[in-house]
């Protein structure tokens, strides 16, 4: 097999059984790899109605056919697939770094974790040799200490994926962390790992995936690397400033939510911008495996030096909590990684708690002396720790903003879709992004379809962000292409520079398949419909394809987008129609037959 290693590792933590199974190449032709293939396999073997913390829920950790393939730009990604304890949807959480590539070097496309260990364990994978080991000494440890200990007791050159106290304590917003500061952050996948008493997976491999046509790959890689280098975003913007360069542009457009989306501009945006980060705190740029872009940052404040913060994180701990102290944001990001929580959901949950406090629903006597006032820099650091450790009110916050709001009779202050916290763009004045939020198969999310690209950044062309007309078609194409890219093992950021033909050419050179732009998009469409079917089976429906009440019913109150309202009601029926779904958002028999979904 080319690109793929052809082997799936299946580990049952209840019985201790370890099996090596052949990858189903026919299924891989339909669903590619990574997100698509692992989700389809998950959907085939797990009860769609299962409770996420049930022992029979499973965790699929999957690389793509291009992960770990030498010279492929950004082939360092992997996906964590499970049923989400946050959203109740199928979850597929993506991460970079080096772990995904190393899994391929060890000879596997995917690891499937089943059952539940009686006591804390970790898994060691060294090529053929797979061992379940005791993790009593690691349980309760922060993620960086766990990583260091595991490298020391295994192999300094191994790659470590682990959970922190957040995942151990079943926080519904817990991340799976890898390579110290990379995160499969979203949808609470770390909590499912914690529910299985699995602390970490250490992997070390010594062989490389084979390539079908080396000459062709050389030619294609040369072409796309040139595109990546010459593209303003991937060649200049991201390498120089990282993702946080977006702070000013999103704020200048008046769609930078502040104080839990009560405002849509933040007066101190400059103080937390990518430009300020580069001036004051940046230590070095960091790239994931095989990445020519290197958007990753390493920043230093006092005695803390760590990866990040990313744009979404700066927004969350910054503007969304009313905090203009960038040093505090960097510290909160550090602690969020240490306790192993998703930075978007963690910061947005603090913001929701701040609004519940502002409205008198959370009382002072619940705070143990730690303020929840908007703008309190110390609060974002300390509440992040308390959330990860489930201390005091942090115990309730660890359930995520929606369930926190419910506990106070006010879930409407959770700025979430399908109970997953929204990222850093106000959808009321970016209509396509609003539709993408509402229809995302994993709940509130920007990277299932990044309409910010055409609606704000003018890539590949400029769309009027206030206009609803035409957006359903754009959202579908972005969702489909993203699903396909996510299934290759490459990074979504390459799509600023690469088109569908480029991805098809790389896949074909590596795997020997014969994709073109149309069949690649059809693969994405198939993946999207399969995810949707899983969610419908899980009990989600049209009523869940929506936005928080505030963002549906109220206009923007400040800044250049003042007065703008969501036009979701107008777009949603058209979107269902464009997708070939019925009026309730259910894929029709004809659509499923067209896609060959069984």
């Amino acid at each position: 097999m080319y690109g793929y290693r052809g082997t799936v590792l299946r580990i049952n933590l209840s019985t201790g059984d370890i099996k090596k199974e052949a990858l189903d190449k026919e299924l891989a032709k339909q669903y590619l790899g990574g997100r698509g293939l692992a989700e389809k396999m998950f959907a085939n073997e797990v009860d769609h109605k299962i409770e996420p913390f049930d022992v029979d829920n499973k965790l699929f950790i999957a690389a793509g056919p291009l992960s770990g393939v030498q010279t492929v730009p950004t082939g360092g990604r992997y996906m964590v697939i499970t049923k989400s304890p946050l959203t109740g949807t199928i979850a597929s959480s993506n991460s970079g770094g080096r772990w995904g590539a190393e899994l391929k070097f060890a000879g596997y496309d995917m690891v499937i974790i089943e059952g539940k260990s009686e006591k804390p364990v970790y898994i060691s994978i060294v090529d053929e040799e797979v061992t379940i080991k005791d993790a009593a000494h690691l349980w309760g440890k922060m993620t960086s200490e766990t990583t260091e200990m595991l490298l020391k007791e295994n192999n300094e050159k191994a790659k470590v994926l682990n959970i922190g106290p957040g995942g151990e304590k079943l926080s519904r917003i817990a991340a799976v962390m890898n390579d110290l500061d990379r995160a499969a952050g979203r949808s609470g996948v770390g909590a499912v790992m914690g529910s299985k008493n699995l602390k970490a997976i250490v992997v070390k491999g010594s062989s490389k995936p084979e390539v079908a046509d080396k000459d062709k790959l050389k030619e294609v890689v040369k072409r796309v690397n040139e595109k990546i280098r010459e593209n303003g975003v991937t060649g200049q913007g991201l390498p120089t400033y990282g993702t946080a360069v977006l702070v000013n542009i999103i704020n200048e457009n008046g769609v930078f939510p502040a104080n839990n989306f009560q405002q849509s501009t933040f007066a101190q945006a400059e103080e937390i911008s990518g430009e300020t980060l580069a001036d004051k705190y940046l230590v070095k740029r960091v790239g994931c495996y095989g990445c020519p872009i290197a958007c990753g940052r390493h920043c230093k404040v006092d005695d803390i030096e760590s990866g990040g913060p990313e744009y979404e994180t700066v927004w969350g701990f910054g503007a969304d909590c009313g905090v203009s102290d960038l040093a505090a944001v960097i510290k909160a990001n550090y602690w969020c990684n240490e306790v192993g929580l998703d930075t978007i959901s963690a910061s947005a949950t603090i913001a929701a708690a701040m609004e519940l406090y502002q409205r008198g629903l959370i009382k002072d006597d619940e705070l143990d002396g730690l303020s929840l006032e908007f703008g309190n820099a110390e609060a974002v650091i300390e509440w992040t720790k308390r959330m990860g450790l489930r201390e005091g009110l942090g115990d309730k916050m660890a359930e995520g903003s929606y369930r926190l709001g419910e506990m106070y009779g006010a879930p409407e202050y959770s700025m979430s879709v399908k109970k997953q916290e929204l990222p850093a763009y106000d959808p009321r004045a970016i209509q396509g992004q609003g539709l993408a939020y509402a229809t995302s198969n994993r709940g509130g999310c920007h990277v299932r379809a990044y309409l910010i690209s055409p609606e704000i950044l003018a890539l590949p062309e400029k769309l009027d962000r206030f206009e609803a007309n035409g957006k359903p078609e754009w959202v579908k194409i972005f969702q489909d292409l993203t699903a396909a890219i996510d299934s290759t093992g490459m990074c979504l950021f390459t799509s600023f520079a690469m088109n569908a033909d480029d991805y098809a050419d790389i896949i074909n050179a590596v795997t020997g398949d014969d994709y073109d732009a149309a069949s690649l998009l059809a693969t994405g469409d198939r993946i999207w419909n399969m995810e949707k079917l899983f969610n419908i089976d899980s009990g989600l429906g049209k009523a869940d394809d929506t936005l928080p009440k505030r963002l549906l019913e109220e206009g923007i109150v400040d800044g250049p987008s003042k007065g703008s309202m969501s036009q979701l009601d107008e777009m949603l029926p058209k979107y269902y129609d464009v997708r070939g779904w019925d009026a309730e958002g259910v894929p029709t028999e004809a659509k499923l037959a067209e896609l060959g979904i069984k």
Partner: protein
Amino acid sequence: MRKMTIKVRLFATLRTDRGKEVMVDGPEAMTCRHIINTLEIPEEEVAILLINGRDGQLDTPLSPEDIVSIFPPVGGG
């Protein structure tokens, strides 16, 4: 000929040797093209142009109270 002054905000790499915020003088109803020429910003460096936070064009005539924001190619997410 009457003159006017426009506040211009610059971002990312466009700040190098120019600063964050500059006031640009020009004729009444001058355009953003006048501004980028004055600031010696090559047209291909202008990825996003906002006038008062809304999408602007290089040849739109400006009013004295307008604020212009200029970004080079940037992205993230």
